[in-house]
């Protein structure tokens, strides 16, 4: 089918029915998430952690690396959560630890999502042998247990720090999102608006990224939060095993030092409790926001909807 009779300045008809202004879409997404009570709690919790991470130098009473204090002190007015075995203030470390988790979660989540979008959408749109090969690779990455793979790679790239952790998390974390986005792409590609776009002579790249992509905003946001949660938990796990840079102040390394300095035997439960609770709360906040995101794509999951 050719469209040679069309004048070059004429816009394709599909643009008329295209999405609203990007900011409008964003605003609508935010209000939809905010309208779900669970997601609202998640947004508030996440906000607290992000602000804590950004303003850590202002909030924290001491420098997290200052080790001039008494060793393994209990909770006092000067040290609300006590001090570590190396004589650092635990509260300051907890506040500064938010930086690593929020940073790793955001960056690794972002990169995983970008890869998931690129692979998931083109894989869902293609219908040839390439799709079979991608299918096999994605399934392979899905079934290979992620944490052992991360541990092995991290062991080879010794003490690589946060950059290394982000790299291994992204390598192992993109496949899930790619699969979810692919199945949605497959169901969207047979819809009328895509057929119309094909007949109006749009290129495949434009159809995938300008016509199909905007319809999957909620799924993409959802897979971002999922990937970020996984990244935060993975960073904590790897740091806990001592595979990251153990001089970085993060919740995972705090737990690593807590176990290695026998905080269990000395009875300093707060040293174990505080960092782990923060990891859980941060991960929970992202999962809670995802309840609101689910509602965007599946009205049946919206709160208060009748069965």
């Amino acid at each position, binding site marked *: 089918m050719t469209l040679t009779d069309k004048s070059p300045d004429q816009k394709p008809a599909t643009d008329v029915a295209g999405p609203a202004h990007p900011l409008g879409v964003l605003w609508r997404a935010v209000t939809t998430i905010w309208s779900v009570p669970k997601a609202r709690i998640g947004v508030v919790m996440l906000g607290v952690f992000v602000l804590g991470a950004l303003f850590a130098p202002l909030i924290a009473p001491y420098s997290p690396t200052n080790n001039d204090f008494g060793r393994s002190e209990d909770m006092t007015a000067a040290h609300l959560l006590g001090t570590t075995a190396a004589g650092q203030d635990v509260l300051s470390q907890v506040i500064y630890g938010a930086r690593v988790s929020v940073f790793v979660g955001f960056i690794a989540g972002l990169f995983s999502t970008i890869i998931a979008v690129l692979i998931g959408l083109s894989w869902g749109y293609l219908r040839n042998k390439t799709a079979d090969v991608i299918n*096999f690779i994605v399934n392979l990455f899905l079934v290979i247990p992620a944490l052992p793979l991360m541990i*092995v790679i991290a062991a080879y790239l010794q003490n690589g720090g946060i950059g290394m952790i982000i790299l291994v998390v992204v390598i192992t974390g993109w496949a899930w999102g790619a699969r979810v986005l692919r199945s949605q792409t497959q169901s969207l590609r047979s819809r009328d608006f895509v057929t119309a776009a094909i007949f109006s002579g749009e290129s495949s790249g434009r159809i995938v990224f300008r016509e199909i992509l905007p319809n999957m905003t909620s799924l993409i946001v959802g897979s971002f939060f999922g990937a970020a949660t996984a990244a935060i938990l993975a960073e*904590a796990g790897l740091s806990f095993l*001592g595979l990251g840079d153990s001089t970085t102040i993060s919740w995972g390394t705090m737990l690593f030092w807590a176990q290695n300095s026998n905080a269990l035997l000395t009875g300093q439960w707060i040293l174990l409790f505080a960092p*782990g609770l923060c990891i859980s709360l941060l991960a929970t906040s992202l*999962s809670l926001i995802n*309840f609101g995101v689910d509602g965007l794509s599946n009205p*049946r999951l919206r709160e208060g909807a009748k069965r």
Partner: protein
Amino acid sequence: MRFVLTKIGLLLLTLWAAVTLNFLLPRLMPGSPADAALAKLAQNGPVSPATKAAIEAQLGVPTGSMFDQYLQYLGNVATFDFGVSYTFFPQPVAGLVAAALPWTLVLVGLVTIIAFIFGTLLGVLAAWKRGTWLDTLPTVGGTFASAFPYFWTALLLLFFLGYVAGWFPTSGAYGRGTTPEFSAAFLLDAIYHAILPATTILITSLGGWILGMRSTMINTLGDDYVTFAEANGLKPRTVAIRYAARNAILPNLTSFGLALGGVVGGSLLVERVFAYPGVGYLLYTAVTNQDFPLMQALFLIITISVLLANFIVDILYGILDPRTRR
């Protein structure tokens, strides 16, 4: 039968890919892990040429073409020849792995099945009683608990129930001074030692099953045949269990295999906390000592176990749902 054969073919292809990935990993890394391994091994005394060859084949010291190395590696894997560990010198890696594997298989296997059953039941209940406390409590609790890092749950249980209350042993899989044997006393001792690690995995993995089942069950409840069953005046309980839940379980079963990878990963951290002598603790020991031969073999065996579990679930799924057999 054709369905089973296709699945077996796919399994073999995936196994081959996993083995090949294991071959490529050390070769893609900067530096030479094999040189590090040989240097470390040499500290324990002279290295026999056979040991040297096995380590080189596994970790990739460039002798011969890449293809020759690959063939030799495949031969070693096929004969379970993974070289010699230098953390536990001079024990062969294969023996160490074989001793650790049963502990993890039993622990993770049993707990996963228990978690699947309980989680599915709670998910059915949550979807059926949507909006009530029976829904809110398991969903919110499950979301929160599945955000717990495995090792944190483990540390807390270890601290409060192990050290403070003193109800459970704090490390190992059986009491000091006892040797593994098939007797009632030893079995009870092993179960006693497994309670804390098992509870940890259960708490952290249960939420996923609840949420997954709830979501598929809600979708199933919207189907026409459920409305039809309700219109026929069947008892709500019959509609929920015999009609909706029965069909909602199937999609949830496919995520079983995928979730297993996560549970296995989590159990590695749990084993480290409790010094439980399974593959996770062995992997931790291997990694901290840069025992690359042991590490590679463990990664391979963990991956193969998960692949096999997935294969079994796939076959089961085919038996339960005739539509997938086509």
